[in-house]
């Protein structure tokens, strides 16, 4: 039940958090000791080319010495023109253009992975939850604990080693084959899908077991709940009790867990992109970091943070629909 109060509170959180992210973004280039332009140029060229410094300072909006005015200009550029500056390494492309062309790939990877992980987590968790205490359950749970502990990037490398290199059933790298031209053709779409399979499998395999374990634990605790006993006393059929009482309630902590894990999965997607040279935001960030492309790093940080904030907000709304008690939390 989304009440007005809840909506207002959650929206305020989202806005305040976004504002903090924007402020961090604005302040960081100004916090490094010395003139950021010089620092950056030195990092890139190991000397400071004359003329370039001025250009860069303008880029950062370091035109005055008044932080307030600079912040105002920065906000104006950001909100009115979606201007995040120019990229160094992909010059003359703007940061906004680069993000625009890379973000969809990441959203696709993340969306599919989170969806699959959640669904699998709930289903498998429900399955092992009803078998808690059995031999098969304890073996599955132990394997799951192991899987959740694998670092994303490491598993990605191992998968490439095994399934793209040793047994070449999946493509080694990229988001689609170089031979196909992007467009709404079957060959392009199928190329996109085959290229995304291994990255998605990597993400899902390391993510869903954690959700399944949470689901398992809550399912086990459900059996101790009074309303479950009451439901049985009322003579409700077993499938109704399982679905409308046990699973329906067990889903709530799992939802909380999924939301808390967002940031972790985003990081996972970044790693996976880097390992698979997948043309998403994570790969772009990696390129930006390794070539000291500061405007690009800043822009990506901002976009990703805002995307996660929006995802969080949506999840909060979903949670409110799932749990009528949400105001009390």
């Amino acid at each position, binding site marked *: 039940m989304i009440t007005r109060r809840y909506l207002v509170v959650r929206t305020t959180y989202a806005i305040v958090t976004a504002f903090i992210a924007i402020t961090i973004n604005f302040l960081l280039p100004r916090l490094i000791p010395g003139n950021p332009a010089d620092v950056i140029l030195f990092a890139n060229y190991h000397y400071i080319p004359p003329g370039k410094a001025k250009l860069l300072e303008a880029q950062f909006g370091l035109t005055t010495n008044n932080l307030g005015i600079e912040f105002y200009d920065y906000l104006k550029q950001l909100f009115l023109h979606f201007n995040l500056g120019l990229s160094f390494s992909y010059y003359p492309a703007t940061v906004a253009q680069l993000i625009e062309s890379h973000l969809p790939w990441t959203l696709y990877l993340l969306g599919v992975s989170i969806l699959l992980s959640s669904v699998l987590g709930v289903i498998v968790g429900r399955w092992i939850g009803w078998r808690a205490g059995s031999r098969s359950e304890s073996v599955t749970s132990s394997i799951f604990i192991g899987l959740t*502990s694998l670092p994303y990037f490491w598993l990605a*490398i191992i998968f490439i*080693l095994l399934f793209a*290199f040793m047994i070449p059933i999946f493509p080694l790298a990229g988001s689609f084959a170089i031979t196909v031209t992007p467009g709404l053709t079957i060959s392009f779409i199928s190329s996109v899908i085959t290229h995304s399979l291994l990255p998605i499998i990597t993400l899902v395999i390391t993510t869903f077991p954690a959700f399944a374990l949470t689901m398992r634990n809550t399912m086990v605790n459900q059996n101790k709940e009074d309303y479950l006993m009451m439901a049985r006393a009322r003579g409700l059929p077993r499938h109704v009790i399982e679905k409308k009482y046990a699973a329906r309630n067990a889903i709530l902590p799992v939802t909380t*867990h999924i939301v808390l894990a967002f940031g972790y999965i985003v*990081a996972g997607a*970044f790693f996976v992109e880097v390992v698979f040279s997948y043309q998403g935001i994570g790969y772009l960030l990696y390129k930006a970091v390794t070539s000291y492309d500061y405007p690009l*790093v800043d822009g990506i940080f901002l976009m990703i943070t805002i995307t996660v904030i929006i995802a969080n907000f949506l999840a909060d709304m979903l949670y409110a629909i799932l749990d009528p008690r949400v105001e009390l939390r």
Partner: protein
Amino acid sequence: MIGNYNPENVKAAAKELAPAKENLLLQIWRNRKARIGLIIFGFFIILGALGHFYTPYPATYDNFRPWLAPSIKHWFGTDYDGHDVFSQFMYGTGVSLYVGAAVAFIAVTLGTVVGLISGYYGGLVDNFLMRFVDILLILPTFPLLVILSTYFKPTITSTIIVIGILSWPFMSRVIRSQILTVRQRPFVQAAILAGLPGYKIMFKEIFKFTLPLIIINAVYIFVGAIVAQAGLAFFGLGDLASVNWGTMLYYAQSEDAVIYFAWWWIVPPGVAIALLGVAANIFGNGITEVFGERAGEI
């Protein structure tokens, strides 16, 4: 949140944990799960400590033939540059564990202090601190780590500070809710009515109830930090001259270990991280068992 640990486990534990007793370590050691976790941790700690003083070859010596497969001479083979991978692994274990321990120290201190203050004083202080924590929990940690590490010259110490500062919020919540429960107990109420000063009540009456939770969180943060540091290094952010599990994987990736099929270079650091993760989870479950059982006694 940095680690991929199960928040429900930690929260569920908070509901029923009893206070720590004096013979805390013995109490933990008697539990089978906690013992298995401790043994795994112990193994790596000994390996890392040993690696600090002795490795078969110097960790930075690079005049062996590159891409050698594992042999008696080189247990984990050699890398692209002719380093002995086993020597690097041994040495790197110490560095990675040091990062984990230092981060855990920073984050546990922050998390405990904020949780204690927030839970004990309540009201405005609590409101302010928890809103702040909420915001930190929404901010995606990894991009924040990346941007901070890009701007500040990465050294092991700066990496530790950055990860440490971003690792405490979740823990402070858990500690806070435990305090809220303990605060309702009659003996705390009595102490408040008796007019004991707040800090005395906090450290004499309340703190011991949070100890099991602190242990669980410290272990998760410890492993989470090792993963986070490895991730940052893997992204090329961090002191790339330092030898640790993260930089080993970074070079393995950037020098195309896959194409040379140099699995011996890739597998050890990853398996080590995964083993620590398993150890943390098993240990956490064990602690929950130990203190969950005792909850009934008080």
